[in-house]
């Protein structure tokens, strides 16, 4: 499971479980379009304090490979900007989407 998760397609009633039982995860639902402002991490300023990671309600901030620095998954980030607000060193700035 993860970002590659595929949508579940039912063709008929026969494909359904007896009750409304989940068969997949919400990884299928990319929420990038919710975002107006895109938070961008300035890695020169970032002090690896992990506060943005800690407070992300999605979570759309993860520890990237291989250096384990925080990174934003723009497929899922809804643009709430808690990370921008909470960053103690102003290492996250924003850009308007679609520009």
């Amino acid at each position, binding site marked *: 499971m993860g970002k590659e998760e595929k949508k579940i397609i*039912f063709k*008929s*009633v026969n494909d*359904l*479980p*007896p*009750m*409304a*039982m*989940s*068969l997949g995860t919400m990884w299928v639902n990319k929420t990038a379009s919710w975002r107006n402002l895109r938070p961008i991490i300035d890695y020169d300023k970032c002090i690896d304090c992990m506060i943005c990671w800690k407070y992300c309600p999605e979570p759309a901030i993860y520890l990237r490979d291989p250096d384990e620095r925080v990174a934003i998954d723009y497929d899922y980030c809804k643009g709430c900007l808690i990370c921008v607000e909470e960053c103690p060193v102003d290492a996250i700035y924003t850009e308007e989407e679609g520009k």
Partner: protein
Amino acid sequence: MKRMAIVGNHALSYGALLSRVQVIAAYPITPQTQVVELLSEMCADGTLKAEFVKVESEHSAMAAVMGASASGARAFTATSSQGLALMHEVLHWVTGARLPVVMGNINRAFGPPWSIWTEQTDSLSQRDTGWMQIYAQDNQEVLDSVILAYKVSEQVLLPTMVVLDAFFLSHTSEPVEIPDQEMVDEFLPPYENKYILNPDDPHAFGGLTNPEWYMELRYKIHKAHEEALQLIEKEGREFEKLFGRYYGLVDPYRVDDADTILVAVSTAASTARYAVDLLRERGKKVGLLRIRVFRPFPYERVKEILSGAKKVIVLDRNLSPGAGGIIASEVRGALANVKNHPPVFSYIMGLGGRDITTKNIMELFEEVEKMEEGKDIIWKGVKI
């Protein structure tokens, strides 16, 4: 196997014991209390290895057995009247979640005014909750029906209500055969359900479902009821092989050549059986159709048996105010598509525990003999 004189309430308790229920959650209400008192003792002395959650309301009782059943435990509760009404919301939920909970309900009239006596309006008001409903006519059937209910419920993933009359069964001692545990175990395997709350295979149950698939899930519930129609009779025959007693969807009596057939449920049907015998002795061609299973409604059986009669009487110890007898409405519905179907005479009687005597029932046949056109509602015994 041993034979004991027990009240109907205790027949429910023994049914739960022999079904090896694992979680019980219940709240006391007259006339159900003896069911849970005996089960409490059984749990306390280790006769029954079950968790008994002594909840603070019937609403919580039904929610707790729902949670238990969803977790893979065989769950049981019992209630009556106001308690059943309080459960109403959760009854729908248990069906939608497809949980094979079994519950005893002692039929008792609704208040106000306060009444503790029998009437079927409480359980029949739960008609559309999707619960299977079995109406027992004696204490042996009460006990046996609990075991049968689990057997069928767990195959079709639908809950079942085993229903009995207040006092006439709940508090009346009758000789009852208590089946051997090994034989019950042979008939009823342990509860296994792959659709359960399991951290090793996590699923969410009952999440928001869009109009795109909601209807299909309801269709499945209905299909499960249709499947249960077959299964109830099949398991009834299996049960008969082991225990020598058969229980089906309906219980016809002397109907083969009957001109007039009376439809009834529960203990009123036992009384009616005796009335039929007396009338037969007088040369009247009368018969009885006891409806044992009200949901799923046995349309085909009812049609088969009633369409050959010249007149049909329905005895309803219940009332849907503004409409009439609830079972009569089902019977009329069943006959509607039968060509030249017999007229239906719908009697309301015995509400709030008023006696229904043999004499009363013989009068119904006598009254109907003089009538040609069916009647939507006839009040029997109201002091007008």
